[in-house]
């Protein structure tokens, strides 16, 4: 395996006002890794992702992408990153074709190549008939497919996926999972952020669990199982991040009916 990390995070701190969200994240990701980045709500997952793709710039610490400092050489870093955001936020009065063409142009892609890829990708997602239709009538799954395409369009080396499967139907989920492993084989680095433990368990070859702004577990699923006992990822997750027993919380909820 390549020994120079493609993503390197050193002593990353980030606060919103007095609320410190990241409290010293240290992480090195190597090319070809599929990194599952998990943690409970509010742990700092999205914040990390936003810093990695250049949405947040006022952090403390050092973040380098392929040797480019995210603060000083953000433009060079951004060129090799593809980002699929969590919520289907896009300008939905545009058509997928226009939207993707726009994205391609922002990445400085060649126009002919870009159009060709848009057509191929949209056909692969079975959206070829909707290519010139405004997205305001699209379902969540259709929007998600457009976003996935927008993140892959410029053939980036690092792909940051934030809940990429939300709203997708079962067939598309299988397709995306396969796509992830194929991209990894191709040498792409995948930063996969999700709450769906079963998917993370299957697709990632390294899992990072963060809680309250610090990394609490780091390793492959097998390694985590060795450390924590032979449990599912879901159980490991619960064990590491929850103080009270979750079973009790469910009982309490049921008791509310009485």
């Amino acid at each position, binding site marked *: 395996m390549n020994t120079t990390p493609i993503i390197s995070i050193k002593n990353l701190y980030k606060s919103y006002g007095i609320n410190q969200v990241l409290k010293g994240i240290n992480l090195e990701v190597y090319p070809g890794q599929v990194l599952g980045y998990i943690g409970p709500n509010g742990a700092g997952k999205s914040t990390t992702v936003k810093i990695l793709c*250049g*949405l*947040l710039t006022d952090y403390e610490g050092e973040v380098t992408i392929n040797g480019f400092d995210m603060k000083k050489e953000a433009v060079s870093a951004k060129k090799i990153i593809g980002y699929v955001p969590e919520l289907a*936020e896009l*300008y939905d009065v*545009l058509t997928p074709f226009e939207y993707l063409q*726009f994205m391609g142009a*922002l990445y400085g892609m060649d126009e002919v190549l870009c159009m060709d890829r848009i057509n191929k990708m949209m056909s692969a997602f079975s959206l070829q008939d909707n290519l010139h*239709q405004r997205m305001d*009538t699209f379902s969540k799954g259709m929007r998600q497919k457009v976003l996935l395409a927008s993140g892959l369009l410029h053939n980036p080396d690092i792909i940051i996926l934030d809940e990429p499967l939300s709203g997708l139907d079962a067939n598309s989920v299988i397709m995306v999972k396969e796509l992830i492993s194929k991209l990894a084989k191709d040498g792409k680095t995948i930063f996969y952020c999700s709450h769906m433990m079963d998917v993370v368990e299957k697709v990632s070859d390294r899992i990072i669990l963060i809680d309250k702004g610090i990394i609490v577990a780091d390793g492959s699923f097998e390694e985590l199982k060795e450390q924590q006992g032979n449990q599912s990822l879901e159980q490991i997750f619960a064990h590491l991040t929850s103080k009270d027993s979750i079973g009790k919380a469910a009982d309490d909820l049921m008791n509310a009916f009485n």
Partner: protein
Amino acid sequence: MNIFNEALLKIVLAPKKLYAGWGISVPQLKSILTYKLLMDDRRPNSIQQTRQRSNNSKKEINNSSIGTILMSGLMGIFFLMVFRLGNDHITHLTFYFAMFITFLCMILISDFTSVLIDVRDNYIILPKPVNDKTFVLARLLHIFIHICKTVLPMVLPALIYLSIMYNGIAGIIFFVLSLFATLFSIFLINAVYIIILKITTPEKFKNIISYIQIFFAIFIYASYQLVPRLIGKMELQNFEVAHSSWLILVPSYWLACAFNWVFTFQATAIEMVAAIIGFVLPVASIYVVIKYLAPSFNQKLAMITGSEGASPTKRKANYQGSWNIGESIAAKVTTNEIEKTGFLFSWNMMSRSRDFKVKVYPSIGYIIVLLVVMLLSGNTKGISLQDLRNDSSKSVYTIIIGIYFSSILVLTAITQMTYSDKFKASWMFYITPIEKPGEIISGSIKALIFQFYLFIALILLVIALVFVGPSIIPNIILGITNQVVIIYLIVTIGYKELPFSKSLSNTQKSGMFIRTIFMLFICLVIGVIHFYIFRNTVFIIVAFIISVTLLFFLANNLRKITWKQIKLAGDNW
């Protein structure tokens, strides 16, 4: 909840038995209304928005209705001017109610998309066991309360005036009739909306509504500009509306007659008929809405936000449309790929965003109306185009004023172009490797100029040619160039923002007000200079050269804007 809301809520819920008889669930009605009012009070009105942002505090907003109440009170005082028209009740009140109903309808139109067609209702209320009638009545009453907060303070000045000039009974009759007028206004707008919903597809509905809003806003503005001028021509004191038979068709006349009849016990046959209509119609109309129009309303409404209409129609033929017009202009006026991208993006967003159109396009109408009014009102004795052409200096300066007035439109358009309710979608600008965001901004400003400003310029040119003739062309050209310079100045001074990237609720930067004043001051200065040189062709040519030089400088400067000069991305997320 504040005391106004609570009192109003009690009043509208008073006829419990009547509601129950219609098949409406009163407890549900009450809770829906309670929470809607609570939410209304926490939505900032325009005054509070400014104040909140300038303090940079995240103070919670309560009682935002009080500001609205004060504003309406002022409006009501303004309405008192009708009592100087003519000297009988019917004349006074016909005009009063006409203004009153128009003003209310205007408020309704502008509030309707947010209040009546509250899309969140589809998710929150429709899945619950609430029947259609309850739902619609809740909406109507919500609007009614909403309106009361406007209506009551607006009526109050006239109420006091009438009570003092005549007696308390006059006041009470007047007050009851204003409520009738209010009901009638609700019906009018409601019926129009429901009928549109019935005859059109939900997809097109919102578009139609926004065009109606645009048209209506212009229409109202035009009538406010023109009516007082027409009134000015009538004999003020002896003017009486009573003798025109077509008046029977005017709703405000019915209400005026009703007042006159009840107050004086005297009426002609026609006035009696009108008065009876005035009493019966508002009540009947609300009944019609609930009984006949409401039942299908919810279904249709659900479809507006639903995913219906997403049938995969192949619109390839259509696709050649706006993108290509934009693209061919972009190819000529932009110098690189990123700038072109920015141009095309803004071009498409502007031509499709409903929000942008509704907020910006009415202002084009305003300027046309204003210009025409100014040109016509100069000559009071028999206006002919020939007169205007002969008296050309007057017309020329009117046109020049028109040109520089359009700065206000441009300011609106530039402001609106930076906002979007999809502002979160602007993540795409921040994650892509753009060296100079200035290129994107420059592209979108060019799109704004070509799509929006050239349209205004063309209208100005046509008006100028009609009213003054070809001799004005050099002045028009200078004016338009100056205006483009002003556009770039405004952007450079105040709006270094990526297009469609800011949230509407989160807008006012501190000091923005002063900057706006400063920008308008610059426009004024440039306009005044132009005004002093408009006769001298040499000066015009010199000014034109200066203007073009400045334009190149500013345009180049704009493209060099760096990320550091743009607000931090973090503000958005």
